[in-house]
């Protein structure tokens, strides 16, 4: 396999599948951590609050909106697949995948803007 063999894998839909998988994995890694921090509240409000304050740092905020982006990407991308699988065929999947990515980015960006 040479580099050229990656060529047909540059198609938007192949990238969409890759992005879906990576975002799913990222969510799978993040979700336990998210649950862990929320679980802090089991020992009262204070530990959670201090975690939240720690998370006010810009870098953490950035990471959080990145996660939201991945979540949105995974969700809309997943919904696109559910549509393919369960409704009758429609063309324009490349455009649909691009829109999915665009909308996800917009939502994440919007959230980021609000957090500052």
């Amino acid at each position, binding site marked *: 396999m040479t580099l050229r063999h990656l060529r047909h894998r540059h198609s938007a839909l192949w990238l969409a599948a890759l992005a879906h*998988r990576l975002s*799913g*994995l990222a*969510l*799978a890694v993040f*979700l*336990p951590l*998210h*649950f*862990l921090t*929320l*679980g*802090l*509240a*089991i020992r009262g*409000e*204070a530990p*959670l*609050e201090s*975690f*939240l304050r720690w*998370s*006010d740092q810009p870098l953490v905020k950035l990471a959080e909106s990145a996660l*939201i982006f991945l*979540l*949105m990407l995974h*969700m809309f991308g*997943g*919904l696109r697949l*559910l549509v393919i*699988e369960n409704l009758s065929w429609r063309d324009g999947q490349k455009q649909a995948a691009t829109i999915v990515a665009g909308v996800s980015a917009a*939502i994440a960006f919007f*959230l980021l803007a*609000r*957090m500052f």
Partner: protein
Amino acid sequence: MNVRLYVWQRLTAAVIAPLVLVHVVVIFYATRKGLSAADILARTRGSLTWASFYGVFVVAAAIHATIGVRNVLTEWSPLRDRGAGLLASGFGVLLFLLGARAVVAVVLP
């Protein structure tokens, strides 16, 4: 993946999707004036609605992610159906336990 796993994965995906949407809307709403533990807990403590909301999410996500991780492992690791299934289930149980603990933490007064 066979049809049984498929049905569970797609079904849970369909369940999670609206929940995630609501969750994101709530985040939007909540981050309007900064996030504080008090706000969060005020909203969730003692609420049966939020309890079942997050409860369903945790269960569905645990199932969904388990099957998803299993698929990724069968394709991207040397593990075959059995091994991947076992490892992913381990991960799923962990996810579920942590999730359940979190729900308990934020809901119980």
